[in-house]
């Protein structure tokens, strides 16, 4: 087990206990922070708040909506702060936060979301236009076919993958988590993560090549 206790539905009894014991404390000195509280706040900012951009991006990719993403991140940090004491020091805090966010997402958003596997390309387009202004362009120096691909198309290709594949690719390639961390997050054995990565990337490559062919690039490397 890599991570500490993850606030989520499966740990509810433990959390509720914490909750009540916390609430029973006298409420004096509400405006002046205790030394302990200050220390906790400082550590929280160093350990957890530094990952806010990654969390926000992950939330955007899950919800595809800036408002929902913001709420999700807000909620994640509220929970993380409340249960920061149960975070196992020395383990990957970013992975811990991602897991909390994922649990929140499942509880709150997924129930009334679109059917799994169904990709709404208009939604992707809108999403991309809504964030286009702030993106940082990468250099397009190489004439490789992959480099002709647009951000939007790569995003679409990724979104077109079944969720279990897309998820591991995101966590591995975009967020740089280790297999062990990913396995913990998606609650599957490492072997499963590995094979999902392999199959997902194969599917993704096929999809990207379709786009590349559209631009007239010859992608058959054998010929």
């Amino acid at each position: 087990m890599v991570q500490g206790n993850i606030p989520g539905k499966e740990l509810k009894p433990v959390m509720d206990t914490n909750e009540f014991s916390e609430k029973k404390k006298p409420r004096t000195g509400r405006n002046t922070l205790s030394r302990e509280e200050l220390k906790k706040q400082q550590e929280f900012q160093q350990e957890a708040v530094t990952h806010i951009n990654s969390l926000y991006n992950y939330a955007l990719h899950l919800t595809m909506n800036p408002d929902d993403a913001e709420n999700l991140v807000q909620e994640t940090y509220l929970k993380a702060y409340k249960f920061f004491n149960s975070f196992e020091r020395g383990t990957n805090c970013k992975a811990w936060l991602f897991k909390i966010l994922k649990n929140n997402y499942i509880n709150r958003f997924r129930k009334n979301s679109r059917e799994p596997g169904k990709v709404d390309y208009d939604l992707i387009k809108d999403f991309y236009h809504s964030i286009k202004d702030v993106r940082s362009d990468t250099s397009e120096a190489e004439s490789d076919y992959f480099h002709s691909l647009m951000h939007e198309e790569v995003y679409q290709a990724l979104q077109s993958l079944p969720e279990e594949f897309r998820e591991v690719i995101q966590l591995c390639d975009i967020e740089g988590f280790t297999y062990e961390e990913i396995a913990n997050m998606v609650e599957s054995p490492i072997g499963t993560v590995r094979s999902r990565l392999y199959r997902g990337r194969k599917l993704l490559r096929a999809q990207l090549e379709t786009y590349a062919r559209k631009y007239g690039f010859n992608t058959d490397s054998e010929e």
Partner: protein
Amino acid sequence: MSCALDCELSAREEEEFLKHLAECPECAAEFTEAKKTKMIIREKIVRVKAPQSLVESILRLGTHTNPQAEGSLLFDQL
């Protein structure tokens, strides 16, 4: 293959893998393509910054200026 791509191989496994690549053009070609795919994802997926208002509200956590949000969280969990 995936393990090699993601630097998840042990030193010995990596040595074996590289030895195999040197002898097997098919695997070598596949590995090159796989590396390219990984790179393209890293490069082309746009990263945005979290809105400043969100960052600020999270930096305020623990200062008890946000009792409403804490209240709703409690409600949410019970």
